[in-house]
């Protein structure tokens, strides 16, 4: 029997285990959050744990993925290290604490009691607790999606579910929602929940309901359900409602975002909506016909997968600008900058372009070295933007850019035809529109009519929670919407490559 001592900010806890096991297995069993983008494939080097004691010798393969300094500081990769004796684990738990803004559209309060609305995002889960009669917010919680241990994106999670069973992903999200609802109820001193609405992308809702996802990951992308029905499971004793999804990759979160923007009412308008998350979902409303698409942007704009990336929480650089040749920035909480969140990264790239730190291909000038590689050190901080970070951002922004250009092309529209450009998502709420256009996240012609709507998915879910009639509007949205598949379209590929650079290539 081995003793495992776990230390976090609140103290320590001791448990025992009966046999030798790999550290990631142990941490999963203990429900300790662990970021495993490659789901334990020994390739990403992200599952770093500070741990001392009896562990297997470090292999060359593991050593390659760690810095010397990290090795000195007792950091191991959980997917490599075998626990073969007593150990001590040190956790650094900084949870997110800024909830994206929600807006309520036109609605009536038809319900009584207390209700919960949830948006299960691939990277983050947001929850709010309301008094239904008045629409008063009583509590909220925002956390990293606990399913991150099974992979960072939907594809790697589907792979995990296919090989090991959907049950693991389902249990993980159920447990997390229960924890979050307890937290919200505890803060609000509420003991009973009367109804809930759980929204999210199509794959997240499949996991929530425990449905097979295998066929969603391969063409022709068949789903088990597009929901628009009550859930099979209760949330803190309340019945859950799962709003309708539009297609395999345009989920209930987007139906909800459209509802929040009120686009289903705009039959005479030409509008575009972009929900910027790990997947960038796009909706083009062409006078009552809605064309919806999804592009894989990756988690760069949520602060993940970047060397000094972090969520929009205490210590994150959230804004940056150049004034009179000097770099100025804002830190959430005004403390020492620890990293940079999505909106800060976007500003940073714009600043780097302005200062000539990077050229139009995204290459950092060789004179800038930080942390042993080509990188830009944000002046008077210990925060770096590396060459690899810039590449991640290029891939992310050109996916969004190409998606928008392709949808417009297919409808025979130009940027100038768009009357309103709704931007949804937590990152979108904080981003600087001008800088977003500077780096080419979207075509420059859209900046003039940009309207930020915050967390559209959660906003729409709240409308469904308060007002039963809103379900009719969701039906209307579904009837008007068509999912457009972007991958495999030549024009998308062309725009994707064009969009990688920081200046438009001359037309040919």
């Amino acid at each position: 029997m081995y003793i495992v001592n776990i230390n976090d900010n609140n103290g320590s806890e001791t448990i025992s285990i009966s046999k030798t096991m790999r550290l990631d297995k142990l941490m999963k069993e203990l429900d300790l959050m662990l970021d495993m983008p490659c789901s334990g494939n020994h390739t990403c080097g992200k599952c770093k744990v500070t741990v001392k004691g009896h562990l297997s010798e470090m292999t060359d393969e593991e050593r390659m993925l760690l810095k010397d300094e990290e090795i000195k500081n007792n950091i191991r990769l959980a997917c490599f290290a075998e626990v073969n004796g007593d150990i001590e684990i040190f956790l650094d738990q900084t949870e997110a604490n800024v909830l994206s803004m929600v807006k309520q559209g036109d609605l009536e309060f038809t319900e009584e009691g207390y209700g919960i609305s949830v948006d299960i995002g691939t990277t983050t889960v947001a929850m709010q607790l309301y008094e239904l009669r008045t629409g008063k917010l009583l509590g909220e919680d925002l956390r990293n999606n606990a399913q991150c241990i099974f992979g960072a994106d939907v594809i790697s999670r589907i792979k995990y579910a296919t090989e090991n069973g959907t049950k693991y992903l389902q249990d993980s999200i159920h447990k997390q929602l229960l924890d979050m609802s307890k937290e919200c109820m505890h803060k609000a001193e509420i003991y009973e929940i009367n109804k809930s609405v759980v929204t999210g992308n199509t794959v997240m809702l499949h996991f929530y309901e425990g449905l097979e996802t295998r066929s969603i990951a391969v063409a022709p992308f068949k789903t088990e359900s597009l929901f628009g029905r009550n859930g099979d499971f209760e949330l803190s004793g309340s019945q859950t409602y799962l709003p309708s999804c539009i297609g395999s990759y345009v989920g209930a979160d987007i139906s909800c975002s459209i509802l929040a923007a009120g686009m289903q009412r705009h039959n005479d308008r030409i509008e575009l909506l972009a929900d910027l998350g790990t997947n960038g979902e796009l909706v083009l409303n062409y006078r009552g016909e809605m064309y919806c698409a999804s592009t894989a942007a990756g988690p760069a704009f949520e602060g993940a997968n970047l060397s000094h990336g972090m969520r929009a929480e205490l210590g994150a650089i959230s804004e940056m600008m150049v004034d009179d040749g000097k770099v100025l920035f804002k830190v959430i909480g005004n403390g020492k900058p620890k990293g940079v969140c999505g909106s800060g990264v976007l500003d940073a790239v714009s600043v780097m372009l302005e200062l000539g730190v990077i050229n139009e291909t995204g290459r950092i000038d060789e004179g800038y070295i930080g942390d042993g590689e080509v990188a830009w050190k944000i002046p008077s901080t210990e925060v770096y933007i590396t060459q690899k970070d810039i590449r991640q951002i290029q891939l992310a922004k050109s996916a969004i850019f190409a998606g928008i250009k392709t949808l417009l092309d297919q409808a025979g529209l130009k940027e100038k035809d768009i009357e309103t450009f709704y931007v949804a998502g937590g990152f979108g709420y904080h981003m600087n529109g001008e800088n977003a256009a500077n780096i080419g996240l979207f075509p420059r012609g859209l900046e003039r009519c940009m309207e930020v709507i915050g967390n559209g998915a959660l906003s729409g879910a709240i409308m469904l929670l308060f007002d039963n009639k809103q379900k009719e509007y969701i039906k209307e949205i579904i009837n008007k919407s068509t999912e457009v598949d972007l991958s495999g379209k030549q024009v998308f590929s062309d725009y994707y490559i064009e969009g990688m650079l920081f200046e438009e290539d001359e037309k040919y």
Partner: protein
Amino acid sequence: MNEILNEISSLLQAGKAGKCKKAVQEAVDQGILAQTILDDALLAGMDVIGAKFKANEIFVPEVLVSARCMNKGLEILEPLLLEDGNDGAGTVILGTVKGDLHDIGKNLVGIMMKGKGLTVIDIGVDQPAEKFVEAAKENNAQVIACSALLTTTMDYMQDVVAAVKDSDLSNIPIMIGGAPVNQEFCEKIGATNYTVDGAEAAEVAYKYCQA
């Protein structure tokens, strides 16, 4: 070396597709042989890009924009190369496997193979195993090359390997590539070869065709 050839190479490395295409046309107009333009300008430029990519100096976006320049240049050169009697060093069947609609990586490989003088029959995305076999038979190909971008679709490559083994093409080399694929996977499914990037894939395919 010729000034215009150097210019084409630099334009390609800088990712300027429009200007690159114009310069290729200019070189043709100056009477430079298509093969020379291909070897000493376009491929020379891609060699630099490939080496920098291997050394982690540049990343996917730059390779893609340079490859697009190469493709634009090839549009002009291809008919001329045929006229000059370069009817190909061999034929490769290239496609993305069933269930997967991604074509950017596949197209990049195709461009590099064309650069080597190979005839590339691109059967497209989401292609069943039989399609690879049929196309190989019809075109008398020397190599089959499969691409997949997703961990959920790469397993289908095994079906292609099986379909080829079941056919009378049993000796044709099967090359595989794509972000989630590696050497270990290649050995596991019994494919002939795995390469990390387009340049290497083109080299290997060329060798198979010459064998």
